[in-house]
């Protein structure tokens, strides 16, 4: 029997390996700090007045908590609670729409044999390369003919009509569902709707959670859509409201930071809370930012 090569190495080797790992960890700690510092600065600044905010060296922990920023954001004339509700509503509808259209499409492309399926799928895939600017202008015209400009409809209806990436993602997961399982269900007289809901869907839970997470983040952070389609302040979503806010109160940094915290921290907290669940799945599927 061959011994495993590592076992031949001495204690000394293991010690140097440990030190090396420690040094590399330190390097990653430094990298992480450049990633995290802007967030920490945002949170810390949201509790300071503009004067102490720009004090150098930076006071990471403000001596006294200043809540005027949050008061201005949540109780001021331009009220974030409306924007928050708008964002929640649109994000919710967008995610529901994505789940319905992308799982159904993904299942059909993977498991139903209909005429023209593969050429349709290929066409869809190849058009993912087309830059959004090409379709942005006609889409705007379509929405304006439909009378959807300055309505939330323009922001969530497209999600019910399928997202190429989401459909592609779900198809990958449905392909992994063993054919024998579906065949035996078909023998028992189950139709595709039944198989889809009762058998296939429970088997692609991992893919579903990635889909929901990615489109939740995407819809929540979507800035370009509202910028193009929404005009009235009371219909703003959070990203647009934050931009409006930072233009309007360009010197009130405390309020701007409080507004930033209000919109980003829920998503970040959700992600950190569920990260063990997600990172693996996102890693295994790759793609989409």
């Amino acid at each position, binding site marked *: 029997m061959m011994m495993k*090569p*590592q076992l031949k190495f001495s204690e000394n080797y293991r010690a140097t390996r440990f030190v*090396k*790992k420690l040094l590399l960890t330190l390097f*990653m700690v430094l990298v*992480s700090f450049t990633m*995290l510092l*802007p*967030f920490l*600065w*945002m949170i810390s600044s949201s509790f300071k007045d503009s004067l102490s*905010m*720009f004090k150098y*060296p*930076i006071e990471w922990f403000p001596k006294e908590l200043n809540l005027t920023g949050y008061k201005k954001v949540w109780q001021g004339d331009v009220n974030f609670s409306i924007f928050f509700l708008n964002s929640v509503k649109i994000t919710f509808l967008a995610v529901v729409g994505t789940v319905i*259209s*992308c799982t*159904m*499409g993904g299942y*059909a492309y993977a498991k*139903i044999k*209909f*005429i023209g399926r593969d050429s349709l799928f290929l066409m*869809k895939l190849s058009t993912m*390369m087309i*830059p959004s*600017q*090409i*379709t*942005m*202008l*006609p889409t705007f*015209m*379509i929405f304006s003919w439909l009378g959807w400009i300055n309505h939330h409809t323009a922001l969530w209806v*497209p999600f019910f*009509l*399928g997202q190429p990436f989401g459909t592609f993602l779900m198809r990958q997961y449905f392909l992994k569902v063993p054919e024998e399982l579906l065949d035996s269900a078909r023998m028992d007289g189950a139709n*595709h709707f039944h198989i889809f809901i009762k058998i296939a869907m429970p088997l692609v839970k991992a893919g579903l959670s990635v889909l929901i997470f990615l489109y939740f983040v995407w819809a*929540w*952070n979507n800035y*370009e859509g509202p*910028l*193009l389609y929404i005009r009235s302040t009371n219909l703003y979503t*959070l*990203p647009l409201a934050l*931009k409006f806010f930072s233009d309007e109160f360009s010197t009130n940094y405390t309020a*701007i*930071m409080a507004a*930033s915290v209000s*919109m*980003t921290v829920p998503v970040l907290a959700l*992600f*950190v809370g569920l*990260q063990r669940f997600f*990172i693996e799945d996102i*890693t*295994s*599927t*790759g793609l989409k*930012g």
Partner: protein
Amino acid sequence: MKKTELMQQKTHARRMRNLKENLTGYLFILPNLVGFLVFTVFAVLFSFFMSFTDWSLIKKFQNIKFTGLENYIDLISDKWFHASVINNVWFLLVIPVMIFLAMVFAFMVNDKVFFKNTFRTILYLPNITSVVAISVIWFTLFNPRSGPINEMLRSLGMENPPQWLSSVVWAKPTIGLLMIWKTVGYYTILYLAALQGIPRQLYEAATVDGASTRQQFFKITMPLLSPTTFMLTILSVMNIFKDWSLIQIMTEGGPGTSTYTIGYYIYYAAFKKMRMGYAASMAWVLLVIIMIFTIIRFRTEKKRDF
């Protein structure tokens, strides 16, 4: 007689089953199909048509004129468009940096460090943060007068720190830095997926042969990741040419034309200057540019097979 009847019945049943299968299939993809036909097929054709007209948001449909190649000819002499193209090419410089960093980070957090899951999470955070929030935060950090970055530089003895976003010279690098900061974690995750496909034995064998970590990275990891690198390069080129929200929020193309990009200029032309036809022609040029880059990249990739 009976036999043929039975056969007829059988073929009839099969036909019915096929019909049902087809109908169910199309029913399942119906939402997708409608979306595809309206927002892709129709939109692409419409935008192509639009690019040969003086289409505008403020014009009535009847007043829209067919102008032939005028939009495309105008582009040739449009100084802002030239600036946009040049700036975009400049921004391509961030791609190697972004990709190399992501590769190194992925190599590290794959198995070289402690707390690898924590690092993965932290690296991914900027990617799930709203681009508006990111812009707002960095905007104050880069504030030339009193922002912490310049305060730090001053305390280190630099008398005239850069004006960052308000300087013609520094605006582009600043935006480039932001692009890297926002994207690197996402690319790291994509590289991690690819790393998981590299057999561990390769590294073990290399360790036995006395290869250092650095050698392992350059001799094993980097070559074996090249399909992902290839994909990420194309993805980055596309994104750099078409992304416009960061520019719209941070600089609106300024100062001067120093941060105009094609993606942003299309938005600006269509919705600020109300020249939709002109913007559409730019979008088509953008598509051609992206395709040229993709083809070049495909060509260079083929030569280097191993």
